[in-house]
């Protein structure tokens, strides 16, 4: 097949509707907007009716939506070209954090770039899966051992640089996003099963290397009552909030647990508990359904993608989103230890929302920048 370079615009599908002109995927946008609207309401309630908090969140949401639209305009092959530089920049910034990082609450995670304070690990949430997908863009299925080892190496370097910050939680989640790419690229089942069993067996070794506060989190997770004045208190209070919501909840602004200050971080990490308390089981099921809608649409985009690079990115982004949701909800309902992780699209806060919305922008770009050739 020959392509005339002068007629580049014809390579892409002729756009019809406004949304398509803007490279926006309607289904994805619908799910995201519903979740963000719910987020505004819950943040307002969790902050005890604080107007200023809600305004700030609305501004952040607007900003993140603009970023999503901007990233949706960038065709995937442009991202492909810049991937190695993106990764290099991310790695340099992570090293920069270790050398000149600002210490916030005991860990160096912030890089001060003049007026902006920046968390390079946030960039890596996007850059790592893209980089690993870049490595497998031309690979066969299943890929060669050499490529797999290279991918594993890239993941380990990145995760290693974040672990020493020290930020074990983020490091594990970022590594996970890279591992998802390996999985979709065709990591053999034998290897998957073997490494899962190895991880389980090596847990006691990991325990040995953990920081005291991390050990304490695990200990209070296993037995919350052991530290009723400290972190165990949070899990107990969170479970009370969720459980007391019942089937239909206490209604918006009805959360006594959050308003009487029993719940910690009620607008960020524990926002799910507020939602569960105020909207009950029904609210929780609707929330999970909306999440499922977004994830399903994302996975569908992955299945329709035209090349390895984009489909690996799309699939990995969606699975990572799922892991964040699952870990956060499990954490606040006492199924996993408290690791300080926001609930995607719901929690109050800027930086995680921004990287998430950029990933949605990339997803939309993948779906809307298709080439006519394959139609």
């Amino acid at each position: 097949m020959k392509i005339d370079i002068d007629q580049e615009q014809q390579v892409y599908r002729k756009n019809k509707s406004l949304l398509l002109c803007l490279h926006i995927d309607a289904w994805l946008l619908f799910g995201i907007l519903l979740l963000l609207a719910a987020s505004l309401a819950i943040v307002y309630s969790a902050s005890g009716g604080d107007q200023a908090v809600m305004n700030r969140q609305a501004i952040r949401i607007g900003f993140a939506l603009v970023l999503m639209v901007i990233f949706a305009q960038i065709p995937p092959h442009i991202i492909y070209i810049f991937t190695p530089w993106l990764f290099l920049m991310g790695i340099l910034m992570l090293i920069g954090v270790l050398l000149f990082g600002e210490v916030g609450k005991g860990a160096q995670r912030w890089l001060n770039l003049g007026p902006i304070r920046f968390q390079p690990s946030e960039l890596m949430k996007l850059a790592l899966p893209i980089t690993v997908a870049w490595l497998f863009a031309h690979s066969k299925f299943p890929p060669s051992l050499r490529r797999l080892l290279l991918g594993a190496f890239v993941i380990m370097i990145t995760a290693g640089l974040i672990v020493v910050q020290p930020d074990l939680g983020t490091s594990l989640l970022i590594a996970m996003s890279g591992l998802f790419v390996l999985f979709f690229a065709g990591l053999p089942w034998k290897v998957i099963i073997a490494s899962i069993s190895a991880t389980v067996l090596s847990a006691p070794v990991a325990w040995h290397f953990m920081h005291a506060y991390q050990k304490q989190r695990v200990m209070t997770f296993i037995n919350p009552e052991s530290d009723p004045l400290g972190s165990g208190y949070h899990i107990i209070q969170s479970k009370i909030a969720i459980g007391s919501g019942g089937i239909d909840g206490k209604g918006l602004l009805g959360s006594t647990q959050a308003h009487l200050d029993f719940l910690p971080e009620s607008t960020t990490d524990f926002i799910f508990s507020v939602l569960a308390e105020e909207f009950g089981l029904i609210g929780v099921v609707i929330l999970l359904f909306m999440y499922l809608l977004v994830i399903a649409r994302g996975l569908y985009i992955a299945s329709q993608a035209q090349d390895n690079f984009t489909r690996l990115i799309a699939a990995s982004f969606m699975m990572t989103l799922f892991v964040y949701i699952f870990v956060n909800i499990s954490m606040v309902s006492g199924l996993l230890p408290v690791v300080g992780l926001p609930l995607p699209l719901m929690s109050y806060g800027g930086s995680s929302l921004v990287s998430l919305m950029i990933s949605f922008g990339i997803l939309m770009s993948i779906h809307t920048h298709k080439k006519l050739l394959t139609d």
Partner: protein
Amino acid sequence: MSEHLEFNSDSENFAQKKQFQFRLFFAFGFVVLLFLFLIGRMLQLQWLEYDRYKGLADGNRISVEVLPPTRGKIYDRNHILLADNQPVYTLHLIREKMKNIDSTLQATQKILTNISAERLHNFFAKFKKGNRSRTYTLPFSLTEEQAAKFAVINHKHPGVTVDARLKRTYPHGAAAVHALGYVGRINAKELAKLNEKLYRGTDIMGKLGIEKYYESLLHGSPGLQQIETNARGRVIRKLETLPATTGQDIHLSIDIELQKYAESLMGKLRGSIVAIDPTNGEILAFVSMPTFDPNLFVDGIDQKSYDILRNDPNRPMFNRAIKGQYPPGSTIKPFVALGAIEQGFISPYKKISDPGYLEYKGHRYRDWKRKGHGIVDMNTAIVESCDTYFYKLSLDMGIDEIHDTMAPFGFGKASNIDIYGERIGILPSQAWKMAKKGKPWYRGETIISSIGQGYNLATPIQLARATAILANRGKIIVPHLYRNPKEQTFEQVEIKKIANWEKVIKSMQNVMHSKKGTARRYATNLPFKMAGKTGTAQVYSLNAGDYDAETIREKLRDHSLFVGFAPVNNPKIAIAVIAENAGSGSKIAAPIAVKLVSRYLESQLNNLKD
């Protein structure tokens, strides 16, 4: 375009795509399964165990309250209290429980007559927009009387409670404020850097001076208390308690009586006095004039008072003792002389003739005495503060040699005093000028550097420290305000011949006690021997022509300086005095120093008698 073509699906294997899609289905199944698992967990918590959690939530009146620590007190060296914690009253407000916010505002306005209506309005305006269920604290304190008045009408204002807390107070007011510093409300920027756990329940922290430097010692750590409340939030009983750890008390090396005396000696002058115990580096008096009242800052200073302080042309908030960089003038002559004779540039007995100026490359460098000092040796040069002697000497030594001889005394580097914000002054050298100005050094600049003018700048703490090191015969001390009984180790300035040091010190003694000494008038009746050196630093260089202090605007008048120590053979106090724009060193700074040193040595003597 070639990039696209490479991963074009044309080249793709159909089986490969199928395998990928199988994995996608597998992943989606996994997601659905785990979401169902989460819903299962929710069913368990919200349906099966609902009654239990409902009961717990209703009865959930067990909460954890933070017990903020009591801040450590600060005492002077004689155990006189400098920073105390006094109980004061304040109001806590919870919007959710309040009926009529405006009536509460009016009521507080009536009682708090000392607070401007505007500030109260500002607080309430912010409060109305804040978190409905959070407790807000009125940022002003109530006197006992005001608290009692409010308690009487409290029943009309639900959601408002009168609370007693401890407030930092500085009983000596403005005295020693530049050493003590003050505490103030923690702002958002500071909050981000603090250890949240340690500062729960605390809204103040050290902002300046000792209060800031020793924040970690003074603060302590909070305790926790489990309390049971009734449905309306009133405390029924206290369960477990983990008491707070009180902050550590600190003793300063400052003698507050001496400090106040020193401040009174300065009167309305701007400037600084630093007095150090040369045996261990303890700072006895730390004066920067004018001063201000730290009590203003504790509850947050109001804009008007702050503007007055900020816009005061005398800059009361400027810590001159560590931040004021002054040309040291003739006070550096003993250090230059010592370096010259130690390094063998000149013999202390060598006599030169002084016509009242030095001519170098067609320019006349004038002595302060127009007629000149006649025939001078090193002793006379220090005693009468002969400039020409040092002009000539400096041309032999060169600027780098002068730099090297003064650097061990701490000029041009931080004294490492235990307060933040110290400036390091300037001790010029060829390398310094090249690095800072990008220009080579001119020998003419060496000439004016030798009498502490030109680029030379030093802070009062540096001058006091250098004098203490000279008094110590080279034992290097680090000036400090926190009186820590810990054993210190001292470094030593290299001594080639101790006789040279004694020679210079003897000359400084002659400044005070000989017939021609520049400060002879004030030391005639002293019961001890004192060594000193006066200095008069030009604020800007005057061209040839007579100096008339009256006609020059006050701000451009000379700084008056003095450094000294006593007793000469067993130094107990080293001192530096700088009075800005006060004129000659012998007239203003020297008598202040002599009075302060006598007062201190007398009190030491009395202590021995007791």
